[in-house]
């Protein structure tokens, strides 16, 4: 355990050096939480991002349509007055629930908008980490069939 941690630390400093010398880009150095993206439901994802339970919060504003004209592009915006350090967007009924997560360093506003794919009508969750605790807001988005269907 200790050893492993030391290795991780050593790796982190090596990566930092590579970024500063331009060998790799900052995006290459950034972490990608594989376990979280493999999660099949809210609990799986919450566990993988270091949470246990999330408390429902009215302070999280989700901007998303009630009906999406096409599941390929569903706009989802999350904004909160909580002191957020991380925002996570999940689509409950997708094959893997986690769609995207955002890290907000000091100075970033607790605001993000992106677009996600939805295979079918589903609950969409916004998780917000603030002061070490997880909060959640949920909205149901209906996905309709459009066009001539051919």
């Amino acid at each position: 355990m200790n050893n492993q941690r030391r290795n991780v630390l050593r790796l982190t400093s090596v990566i930092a050096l590579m970024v500063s010398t331009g060998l790799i880009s900052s995006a290459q150095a950034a972490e990608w939480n594989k376990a979280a993206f493999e999660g099949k439901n809210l609990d799986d994802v919450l566990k993988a991002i270091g949470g246990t339970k999330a408390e429902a919060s009215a302070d999280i504003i989700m901007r998303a349509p009630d009906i999406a004209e096409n599941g390929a592009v569903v706009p989802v915006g999350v904004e909160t007055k909580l002191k957020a350090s991380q925002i996570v967007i999940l689509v409950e009924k997708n094959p893997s629930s986690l769609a995207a997560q955002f890290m907000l360093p000091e100075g970033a506003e607790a605001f993000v908008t992106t677009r996600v794919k939805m295979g079918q009508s589903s609950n969409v969750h916004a998780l917000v980490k603030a002061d070490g605790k997880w909060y959640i807001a949920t909205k149901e988005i209906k996905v309709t069939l459009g066009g001539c269907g051919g």
Partner: protein
Amino acid sequence: MQTKYAPFIFASLLSLGSASVFSQSATDEIAKYREMIADGNPSELYEMAGEELWKQQAGPKKATLEKCDLGLGPGVVDGAAAQLPRYFKDTDRVQDLESRLMTCMQTLQGIEQTEIINGAFGKGARKNVEAIVAYVVTHSKDMKINVPATHPKEKEMVALGQKMFFYQGGPMDFSCASCHSSSGQRIRLQDLPDLTTQAGSALGWGSWPAYRVSSGEFWTMQRRLNDCFRQQRMPFPIYGSDVTIALSIFMANKGDGGTVQTPGLKR
């Protein structure tokens, strides 16, 4: 026959009230959805690529398209899309933006038109045409559609386009008019512009080309028409053919004076 109709119509009227209220709320939500995705139209990515292609040396003649005459003089891009389709003396033909770009690529760069005509959407040389279209139409955004069709050849093409618009065929008896000749109509939840009116044509013609979120691609007017014909169960319209240009100038002329809103963002 009258008696057969009666119960049918009566029942339809009965259900109409609740149905329209119901669909109204769904339509409002769809409008909200469209508004949300309008900010950040991925067609900007095509436009960037198109601008580069316009200014890049290409083809056997290693030339750029910067001397291409889209109707307002060599190299003029601002406002060019708003006055197309139009008659061109050098080709003695009414041309839309895409057929005109093919002419320029042939004469200036030496790229064979047949390569583009026989190609496929989103591939090869035609993909380049599509990106250039995104670039050119962006430079007419918010301008007035200016297709009065005063030249005799333009007038003739408008008449031919109108005939095509109403021409039924195929195993479903569809014409463009089947879906686009009265207002307030929808297929599923998609509003269908009435292309027989100025306002409807201005809206329909004026918001294509567009980025289609359902396919994740930028669709030019040629591609829009191609898929209309596919859904009409017609045979395959040849890229840049007079059929497609006639329909385009019919719509553009009908929508004359309306506003160019391209590139649009569509389902």
